[in-house]
């Protein structure tokens, strides 16, 4: 489908990437390589559109992923022809191409060196500094990547993508308080992003499951999932998280009735146990409705991803088992 070539292909399933890159030779043959504004042929050929170059960029990423380096190189050449080799975004793309075809760590180190040379010349080159951070992470030099990313964010504190990457880096290192802070920064930039609210809920849940700070994180996580549902009707991920957190809250609160009373210094009061019960019921009802309607193939309920539906079914089954026994 041509529409998926207009979006960054990172999250696509492998099969879709394969299909896209299989289209590459055909697309490269049929789409124009360059559109010059002052030629006779521009009278009858279609006007240049931004979609054309987005297509090239995304096609190149898909081809690199599937190993079709020749087509990727053609895309890169055409983009260079159009925008020039000094374009910041193209510098990053060229680096990406070299990363992909690098055989061993030495070649990668060379690419890294190249990035650093570019950054010495022009420290404000955002795409290349992002690539450098990504390459550091890919080389398993996580702490260096975190330092570089923090420096990057000092320079551009409104880059939501970078904050989100930082949060992900912290989560992989198990540094949950820092990750929560970074995700809250993302939400300051994009307060309506329902998936980031859910992500923050997940990280809070993970933090609560780790050894530190259970009683503060879990209610906060529940609130985040509630917010994500508030922003998006029938949000499977939000309801899944809500069910997990409320079930866990119910067990912990019934165990430690006393410790709940002692807390009064955090901003929000602890949630009422009746509200949690009702939220839990609501999440169960909604999840089973979503699963039922999706599996029966009802029209207008087919947009959910298969693994998510299976996971929701699993959660519902796990919950139902003790009752039937």
């Amino acid at each position, binding site marked *: *489908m041509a*529409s*998926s070539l207009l*979006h*960054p292909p*990172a*999250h*696509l*399933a*492998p*099969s*879709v*990437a*394969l*299909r896209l890159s299989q289209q590459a030779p055909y697309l490269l043959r049929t789409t124009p390589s360059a559109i010059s504004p002052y030629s006779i042929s521009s009278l009858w050929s279609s006007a240049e559109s931004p979609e054309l170059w987005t297509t090239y960029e995304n096609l190149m*990423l898909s081809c*690199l*992923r*599937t*190993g079709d380096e020749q087509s990727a190189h053609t895309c890169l050449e055409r983009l260079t022809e159009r925008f020039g080799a000094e374009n910041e975004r193209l510098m*990053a793309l060229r680096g*990406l191409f070299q*990363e*992909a075809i*690098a055989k061993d760590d030495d070649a990668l180190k060379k690419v890294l060196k190249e990035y650093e040379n570019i950054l010495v010349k022009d420290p404000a080159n955002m*795409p290349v500094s*992002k*690539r450098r*951070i*990504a390459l550091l*992470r*890919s080389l398993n030099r996580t702490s260096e990547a975190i330092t570089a990313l923090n420096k990057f964010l000092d320079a551009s504190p409104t880059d*939501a*993508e*970078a904050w*989100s*990457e930082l949060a*992900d880096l912290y989560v992989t290192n198990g540094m949950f308080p820092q990750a929560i802070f970074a995700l809250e920064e*993302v939400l300051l930039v*994009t307060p*309506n*992003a*329902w*998936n*980031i609210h859910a*992500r923050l809920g997940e990280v809070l849940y993970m933090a609560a499951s780790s050894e530190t700070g259970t009683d503060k994180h879990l209610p906060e996580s529940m609130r985040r999932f509630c917010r994500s549902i*508030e*922003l*998006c*009707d*029938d*949000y*499977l991920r939000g309801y899944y998280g809500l069910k997990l957190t409320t079930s866990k809250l119910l067990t912990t609160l019934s165990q430690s009735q006393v410790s709940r009373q002692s807390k009064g210094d955090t901003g929000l009061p602890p949630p009422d146990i009746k509200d949690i019960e009702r939220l839990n019921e609501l999440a169960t009802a909604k999840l089973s409705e979503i699963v039922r309607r999706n599996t029966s193939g009802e029209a*207008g*309920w*087919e*947009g*959910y*991803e*298969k693994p998510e539906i299976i996971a929701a079914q699993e959660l519902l089954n796990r919950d139902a088992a003790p009752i039937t026994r």
Partner: protein
Amino acid sequence: MTWLSKSITSLGFLFLAHACYSAHEHSALHSTSTATLSSLTSHGPAASAVASLPIDISIETVVAIFTICLALVLGTPELRPIQWRVWAGKIEREGEKGFMNGDGEVEKDYVGNPFKVLESRPGFVDIRKQRKEFAEWVREGGDLATAPKS
């Protein structure tokens, strides 16, 4: 739905063209029949021709315009949700299928969840990891049939 609206629109335009043609013919006939040497300045007969336009031509014009309006309204795409949570829910629930236009193609400006880039992060893509994962997927014999469509 679209073929219905299209056919009604063309019917309406047919009526309208017919009404215009009739009006033109009527005024031409009227002016030649009442033409005198003194009224060749064309102002007088034209005004009288408009005033004496037969009622059936007027009715046909009005009916044609209403038909065209009705057909155009019928042919409009479904209104988009204007509430944030309804719109977001539609994206999550229906995916691409919820944003088809009349011809069965996904609309040009459909982007899915616009905040998904915050989780896929194209600026920080780790291409080597993706290549490795793809190679593994191929080795495991990934087939197109079981894959989700997008």
